[in-house]
C-alpha cells in the first residue's frame, strides 16, 4: 500500500537539514538587556547568518536555571559576580568572560512631572509604592537598595517597597501606574539620547556597586561556533554603538 505521507516526510527531512550551515544559539539574557538584545540579534544574523535566541529573566533566575541544566550557551549577566561564580562552579569558560556593558540605575516614574532629575520626590515621600526588582535575584534591585541605604531612606521607605520578580516586571508595575515610581535600568526607558517617557532621576554611580555586566560562554556553548561568533560580535564596534545608544557605558 502506498501512503501519501512520504513526500511530506521528505520535505521535513530536507527542511530540518537546511539550516545546518548556519547555527543558532540560546542566550540567557538579564532582563535589563532585553531591548538591546532584541536590537542586536537581527544585526548579528545579518552579519553572520547565525540566529541568537534570547531567554529573558532576572540574573539570579538565569543562574538557578543554568545550575539545573538549562540549555543556555551564553549568559549575558547583569553583574560580574554571577559569571564568576559560574566559572568557579565549572559551568562556564573562564577565559571567555568580559564586560559587555556597564549599566546605569534610574529612578523612574511614568508621570511626566513626577521627578525633576533629582531625588527630591524620594525624600518628600508622597507616594504609596516604590517599585524595585527583587534584590535576591536582580542586581539592579540590589543596587536600588544600596542607593536607598546611601540616601538614608532604606528604613524609612521599607514599608512602601514593592518587588518585581525581574527588572522588567518592576518597570511594568511603574508603567501601569500601580507604583508611582521605582528603580529600573536606564536602558529600559532610554531612546535616542534621552528618557523617552515619564520622568526620571539618573542615580549617580557612586551610590551603589558598579553594574558591570559580564558575558560568559557556558559549557554547553563551548563547541558551538555560533556562540563564539556572538561573543565576538558583542565586542564589535557595530554592537558597541547599539549598546551605547541604550545608555550603557562601555569600557574601552
Amino acid at each position, binding site marked *: 500500500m502506498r501512503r501519501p505521507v512520504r513526500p511530506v516526510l521528505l520535505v521535513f527531512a530536507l527542511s530540518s537539514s537546511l539550516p545546518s550551515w548556519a547555527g543558532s544559539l540560546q542566550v540567557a539574557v538579564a532582563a535589563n538587556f532585553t531591548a538591546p538584545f532584541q536590537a542586536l540579534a537581527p544585526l548579528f544574523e545579518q552579519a553572520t547568518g547565525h540566529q541568537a535566541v534570547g531567554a529573558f529573566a532576572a540574573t539570579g533566575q538565569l543562574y538557578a536555571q543554568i545550575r539545573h541544566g538549562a540549555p543556555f550557551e551564553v549568559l549575558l549577566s547583569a553583574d560580574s559576580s554571577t559569571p564568576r561564580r559560574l566559572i568557579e562552579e565549572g559551568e562556564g569558560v573562564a577565559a571567555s568572560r568580559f564586560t559587555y556593558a556597564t549599566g546605569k540605575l534610574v529612578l523612574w516614574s511614568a508621570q511626566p512631572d513626577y521627578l525633576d532629575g533629582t531625588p527630591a520626590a524620594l525624600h518628600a515621600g508622597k507616594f504609596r509604592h516604590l517599585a524595585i526588582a527583587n534584590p535576591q535575584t536582580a542586581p539592579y534591585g540590589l543596587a536600588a537598595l544600596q542607593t536607598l541605604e546611601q540616601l538614608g531612606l532604606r528604613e524609612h521607605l521599607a514599608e512602601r517597597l*514593592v518587588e*518585581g520578580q525581574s527588572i522588567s516586571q518592576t518597570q*511594568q508595575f511603574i508603567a*501601569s501606574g*500601580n*507604583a508611582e515610581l521605582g528603580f529600573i535600568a536606564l536602558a529600559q526607558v532610554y531612546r535616542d539620547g534621552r528618557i523617552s517617557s515619564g520622568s526620571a532621576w539618573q542615580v549617580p554611580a557612586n551610590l551603589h556597586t558598579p553594574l558591570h555586566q559580564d558575558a560568559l560562554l557556558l559549557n554547553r556553548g563551548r563547541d558551538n561556533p555560533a556562540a563564539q561568533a556572538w561573543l565576538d560580535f558583542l565586542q564589535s564596534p557595530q554592537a558597541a554603538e547599539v549598546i551605547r545608544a541604550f545608555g550603557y557605558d562601555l569600557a574601552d
Partner: protein
Amino acid sequence: MPLTQNDFAAIGLSLQLASLTTLLLLLLGTPLAWWLAHSRRRWSKRLVSALVALPLVLPPTVLGFYLLVLLGPHGWIGQLTQSLGLGTLTFSFSGLLIGAALCSLPFVVQPLQNAFEAIGRAPLEAAATLRASPLDSFFTVVVPLARPGFLTAATLSFAHTLGEFGVVLMIGGNIPGKTQVVAIQIYNHVEGMHYAQAHWLAGGMLLFSFLILLLLYAGRQNRQGWS
C-alpha cells in the same frame, strides 16, 4: 527548622487569605449557584455558567494582567476605589482577596449548584405549603440537605486559594506580611537557591493540601455520594 520570620508570616497570610476567600465566596457563590440551579432562563444560565467556569481554563496570567490594569490607577475599579478614598488595591491584601476569589469562584459555585439541583424543588414546595417563608425554608431545608455540597465548596476553595500563585505573583509585589504568601515565598526560596527553606515550606504545603483533600474524600465516601 530553618524557617525565617517571613516564612511564618507567609504561612499566616496564606491561611488568612484562604479563610477569607472561602467566606466571601460562600456568601456570594450561594445565591449565584441557587440562581443557576433554578433559573428557567436557559441562555442567561449558559452564559453565566461559562463565565463562572472561565477561571478553570484561563491561565492566571490573563487574570493577573486584567487585574493589574483594572485595579490600577487608570482602570475603572482603581478609579472607583480611589474616589472612595481607598487608594488602589494592587500590592494589597484586599487586591489578593479579589484575585483569589475570582480564581476560586468555580470551585464554590459548581458543587453548590450540583447540590441544589439534586435537591430539586419538591422539598421547598412542601415547606411552602407549611407556610415557611422562602428564606426560612432555605436555611432550614436546603442548607441541611446541601451540607455535603457546602463542605466540598468550602474545602476546594480553601485548598485552591492556598495554592494560588500566578495572580499573586502578578499583582502582589512580594511584600512580606502583606502579599508574600507561602506559594510566593517558596518561589523566592527556589529562585534564591535556599533549598532547605523551600523544602520545609513545599513539603508542609504538600502534606497540608493532601490532608485537606483526604478529609474531603473521606467525608464524601462516608455519605456514599456527591450530595
